[in-house]
């Protein structure tokens, strides 16, 4: 039996096979306990108060920032901005850096594999500035080839924004190489780490990225807390995203001066309890260890892909190598609409995602309308994979074939 399952109340004593981890992960008691402790011992509005609870709340919030910085290898805590989620992080980068720096005929390079949250903000920047959105095209296995990105990232490129791991194909993109090339051309590199940070050690300094976005709820943390890492010199020059309380130094009737980073980007009362939960989640993950996370996912993914390969009528998208899936296996069953597949699997107590996975351009690239996605995490088990493959093998029968 998997030794971590006991920490997840929702999994204990449940026969649900939760294979929708790329959408959100489950929370261990350690995370809930940390949030409860915050609530029960120091709940107060952080940053402003001059009394004990508020000082303790501020300390707890800033300690979370420190843990987050260490978690992704940021050199300075001030480079960590807390947001609601990866979507907000990417929007922050687009509305501040993007709108401020781009002009007509500049280019933004993204890939066709992006989640909508790494497409729409850049479409907005292009509409408002006259910049052009350029797409990197992967091969059928989802691999971005060097000649492809060398031909698209040019002197006109000002921003390259790329998913570290694709939420559909599971493929890991060559972020380090892309960052080096972007810098050579005078552009910045923004990585959407929503699917990467929960599954592999990330070091923003070694990767050389300028911005890195991720969500807390996909790595065992609560919903409503996310992170944007930004290089200090860039953040300092950027205008604020939202304005209001907590982000100012002086305000007079017609103008204001802004607080130092990171507070300049954290307007209003912050989600301190969420940050505390995220801190506990990151500590839990560090205790499990990414070696264990990756090894478990690799084993389970291999078993899952082997099982699906043995079934007729099943097509798996992306690489044939389980190592390149980051626990994400997207597939279709011939003749069966993904929503029908997910509905009948639900009657077998199996939770999977079906639809376009917020990646419609990728669906069109793969020439499909929708797909079923099973996404694993370290708390899943071989027995679950076996039960899942067995159920998938019966779907066509249930749907009348």
């Amino acid at each position: 039996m998997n030794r971590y399952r006991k920490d997840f109340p929702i999994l204990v004593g449940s026969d649900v096979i939760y294979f929708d981890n790329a959408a959100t992960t489950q929370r261990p008691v350690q995370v809930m306990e940390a949030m409860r402790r915050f609530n029960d011992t120091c709940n107060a509005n952080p940053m402003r108060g001059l009394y004990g609870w508020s000082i303790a709340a501020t300390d707890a919030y800033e300690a979370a920032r420190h843990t987050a910085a260490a978690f992704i290898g940021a050199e300075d805590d001030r480079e960590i901005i807390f947001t609601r989620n990866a979507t907000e992080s990417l929007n922050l980068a687009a509305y501040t850096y993007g709108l401020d720096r781009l002009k007509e005929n500049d280019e933004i390079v993204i890939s066709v594999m992006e989640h909508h949250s790494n497409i729409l903000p850049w479409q907005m920047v292009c509409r408002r500035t006259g910049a052009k959105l350029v797409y990197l095209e992967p091969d059928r296995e989802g691999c971005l080839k060097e000649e492809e990105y060398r031909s698209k990232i040019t002197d006109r490129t000002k921003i390259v924004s790329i998913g570290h791991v694709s939420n559909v194909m599971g493929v890991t993109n060559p972020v380090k190489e892309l960052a080096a090339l972007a810098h050579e051309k005078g552009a910045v590199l923004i990585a959407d780490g929503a699917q990467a940070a929960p599954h592999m050690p990330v070091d923003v300094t070694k990767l050389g990225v300028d911005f890195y976005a991720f969500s807390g709820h996909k790595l065992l943390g609560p919903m409503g807390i996310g992170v944007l890492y930004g290089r200090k010199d860039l953040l300092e020059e950027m205008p604020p995203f939202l304005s209001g309380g907590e982000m100012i130094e002086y305000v007079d009737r017609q103008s204001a001066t802004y607080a130092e980073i990171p507070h300049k980007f954290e307007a209003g009362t912050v989600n301190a309890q969420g940050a505390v939960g995220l801190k506990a989640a990151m500590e839990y993950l560090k205790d499990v260890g990414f070696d264990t996370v990756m090894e478990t996912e690799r084993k389970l993914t291999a078993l899952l892909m082997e099982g699906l390969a043995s079934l007729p009528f099943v097509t798996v998208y992306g690489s044939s190598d389980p190592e390149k899936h980051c626990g994400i296996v997207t597939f279709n069953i011939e003749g069966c609409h993904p929503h029908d597949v997910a509905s009948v699997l639900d009657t077998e107590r199996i939770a999977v995602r079906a639809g376009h996975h917020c990646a419609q351009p990728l669906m069109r690239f793969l020439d499909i309308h929708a797909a079923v996605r099973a996404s694993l995490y370290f708390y899943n088990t071989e027995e679950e994979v076996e039960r899942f493959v067995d159920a998938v093998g019966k779907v066509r029968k249930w749907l009348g074939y």
Partner: protein
Amino acid sequence: MDIKALYRDIVNEHNLHPSHKRDLASPTIVLQGVNPSCGDDINLQLEVKDGIIIDAAFNGSGCAVSQASADMMIDLIIGKSKEEALRLSESFMKMIRGTAAEEEKEELEEAASLEDVAHMPARVKCAVLGWRTMKECIDKLQSGISQG
């Protein structure tokens, strides 16, 4: 009803062997109905003469629930007046919302088998796609705009 049983007893047959999935030779109105979030996409065609739906058909692609629901709806509305079809559509919507009276459900005949979709919020839009599109067709006809 268990969802698997719903598929087995009703949905699969209409999905895999639809009676009305074809193109009409001379439709009075053709309208596309789409669920953008799940990709259901049907093309509903009605032939209306003297206020009566004398023939109907659909084409397109989508999940089994959307396809079967459209097929069952067409079974029901052929031969009915426009007003009658609108009334049935209202009954279907009420059934899905869980507010239909027994008589209203009975009138829906086989289409009433989709009642349990009301408990599957994510699938409601699949079940109502055909009905919604049919209502739009008739509303358009009523307002005097027809198209080929």
